[in-house]
């Protein structure tokens, strides 16, 4: 498997390492720090109280140890919990950007303007981009859609935030969710009114420059009755972050007849080939479906040193539908423990889980999923398919399916398969003129087809390239 070895040892070409002068809180966490965060953000009293309560809860909790990952636990008192970007050094042209980074961008097919934005270059056609954005904003406002930063939502729409925040991921849910609730700095807020179909993909791209994504992001998406929204989070461009610990919380509410499609591409710094550095990504994502509602999570996870993430659906209403489509790539010394929970409470609820793990190098990938059928969930149905693809002999993949059924009418199906990229497949491709790197990309994309096809078109194309880049190592 020498060839595989050679090409899977990819060097991560980092994202923005722009010097950011920041307004930083002293290291450590205590009530004063939380008061500081809240006051820096000019928050109302209720928000501060909510945070303080979360902090009290967190202090009583222990870091979870059940996941199939090993890492040195972060020292929570060595972290600074607030750092507001003061000014970002703006580069004059792409010539000043690391050429390696530009190569990665080119490989990913990211447009020039996007490249500039991502690498902190001033965009020449400012007027244009501002006006485009304004047009979008105007269009959304016309439909009554609210799409803004969490900070803005706390000020402008306190009644909505108070009504929904922490309702599907309570502060007591888990260690990282509690921590996030105490110290989150920003995130996105989105509200789609009754009967409105959001006419465009809502993306964090739009507002990334306004507030910057943070270490402790908080996202809230509310789709009112019979509405529809497709939300994109993250981007395929590599993201470097000084902060080792990331603990985001995402909450989705799909009211009667509503549909939320939530797609994520995660490409945080995975650490170097020897397993040094890299982001710890501990994310809590959960959505609740009322009657006839549908939530569909799609994720392509290629980054981070340690990933701990289980986007879940609570299928509360009758006939509601939950879906989870995931591709998780681990390479070098990366570790991922990811999967989903489908909690069937209502009658005739349906869930589908398609998980595709890809392991290369010395990495470790685990699927962990729970399908729970409550006593009142008559005729609930679930289909799960959890596959893993191994590249080389140094990596490991594991599947931990948990099934709890409390209703006899349930139909639960589980399929799992582990395969290896075979020398036979590679040689066959080579023989037809396809070089090995392209062959791996082709085979991997074929393997992930069922997940990639769930992504919005442009995103899917980028994600395909991203998979190739994260596995090939020919960058630079």
């Amino acid at each position, binding site marked *: 498997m020498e*060839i595989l070895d050679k090409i899977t040892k990819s060097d991560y070409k980092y994202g923005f390492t722009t010097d950011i002068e920041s307004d930083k809180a002293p290291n450590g966490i205590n009530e004063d720090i939380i008061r500081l965060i809240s006051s820096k953000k000019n928050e109302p009293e209720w928000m501060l109280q909510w945070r303080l309560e979360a902090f009290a809860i967190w202090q009583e909790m222990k870091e979870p140890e059940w996941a199939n990952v090993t890492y040195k636990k972060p020292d929570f008192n060595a972290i600074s919990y607030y750092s507001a970007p003061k000014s970002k050094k703006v580069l004059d042209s792409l010539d000043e950007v690391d050429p390696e980074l530009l190569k990665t961008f080119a490989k990913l097919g990211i447009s020039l303007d996007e490249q500039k934005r991502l690498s902190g270059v001033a965009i020449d056609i400012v007027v244009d981009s501002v006006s485009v954005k304004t047009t979008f904003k105007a269009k959304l406002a016309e439909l009554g859609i609210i799409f803004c930063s969490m900070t803005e939502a706390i000020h402008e729409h306190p009644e909505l935030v108070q009504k929904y925040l922490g309702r599907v991921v309570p502060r007591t849910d888990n260690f990282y969710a509690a921590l996030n609730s105490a110290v989150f700095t920003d995130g996105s807020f989105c509200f789609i009114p009754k009967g409105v179909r959001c006419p465009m993909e809502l993306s964090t791209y739009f507002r990334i420059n306004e507030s910057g994504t943070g270490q402790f992001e908080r996202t809230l998406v509310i789709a009112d009755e019979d509405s529809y929204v497709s939300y994109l989070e993250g981007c395929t461009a590599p993201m470097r972050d000084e902060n080792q610990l990331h603990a985001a919380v995402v909450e989705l509410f799909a009211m009667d007849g509503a549909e939320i499609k939530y797609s994520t591409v995660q490409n945080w710094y995975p650490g170097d080939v020897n397993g040094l550095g890299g982001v710890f990504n501990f994310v809590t994502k959960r959505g609740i479906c009322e009657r006839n509602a549908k939530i569909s999570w799609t994720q392509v996870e290629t980054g981070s040193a340690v990933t701990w993430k289980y986007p879940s659906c609570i299928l509360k209403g009758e006939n509601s539908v939950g879906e989870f489509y995931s591709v998780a790539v681990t390479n070098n010394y990366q570790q991922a423990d990811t999967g989903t929970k489908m909690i069937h409470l209502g009658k005739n609820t349906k869930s589908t889980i398609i998980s595709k793990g890809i392991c290369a190098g010395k990495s470790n990938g685990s699927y962990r999923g729970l399908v729970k059928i409550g006593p009142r969930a008559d005729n609930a149905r679930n289909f799960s398919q959890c596959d893993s693809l191994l590249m080389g002999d140094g990596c490991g993949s594991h599947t931990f399916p948990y099934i709890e059924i409390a209703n006899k009418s349930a139909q639960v199906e589980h399929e799992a398969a582990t395969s290896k990229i*075979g*020398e*036979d*497949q590679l*040689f*066959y*491709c*080579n*023989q*037809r*003129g*396809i*070089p*090995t790197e*392209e062959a791996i990309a*082709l*085979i991997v*994309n*074929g*393997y*992930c*087809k*069922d997940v990639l096809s769930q992504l919005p078109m442009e995103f899917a194309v980028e994600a395909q390239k991203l998979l190739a880049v994260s596995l090939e190592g020919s960058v630079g």
Partner: protein
Amino acid sequence: MLHIKNLHASIEDNKILKGINLEVRPGEVHAIMGPNGSGKSTLSSVIAGREEYEVTEGSIEFLNEDLLSLSPEERAHAGIFLSFQYPVEIPGVSLTNFIKTSMNETRKAKGLEPYPAKDLLKKMRDCLELLEMDKGFLSRSLNEGFSGGEKKRNEIFQMALLEPKLAILDETDSGLDIDALRIVASGVNKLRSPKKSFVLITHYQRLLNYIEPDYVHVLFNGKIVRSGGKELAHELESKGYDWIKQELAEV
């Protein structure tokens, strides 16, 4: 065109090829026959550049170039095509997508722009017709769930698209029904030209009724032990391999 001299090859220290000499000139059709395990597929894999096999002695030249120094894909780009005895399945990759990648990588290697999608599609349709294949195959995953015969036919379909200079058909006739054999053979015959050469590996004289070879070779225990015209195939068909084994034992 193809010039094999004293070729020795082994896999995991097992000597499989023990001094092969073979010359194929432009436009010629050579048939290679021989008992199971004699090294026919090994020879085709070594020509195509499979890295598991180690060439311990000898040389292969193709169009006056040292073939052994090229990677498998470079050999493909140079015009070598191998129709596999056991074509592999690649789930999730449609035949169209595979062919597009294959053709465009080949063009890229030659410094050409990718095929315009429309031309490529037309070419694919023409070749489907040539091999009397249903166009439904184009959207199916490569070889996945294809019957044995369909896989073989698909190999010849790709050969027709790639227009190689030298095509090695490793038991393409095995697993084909009578009609399919005729269709595949007539496909091959249509592709014959004074510049293109074929090496047919087969166990049966039947294929050679359709595609008439210029030479027939018998591979036995890693060596070509007998070469002749097409009548040699008839002789083998009626007498089996024992007489050759006996003759060899006597020497």
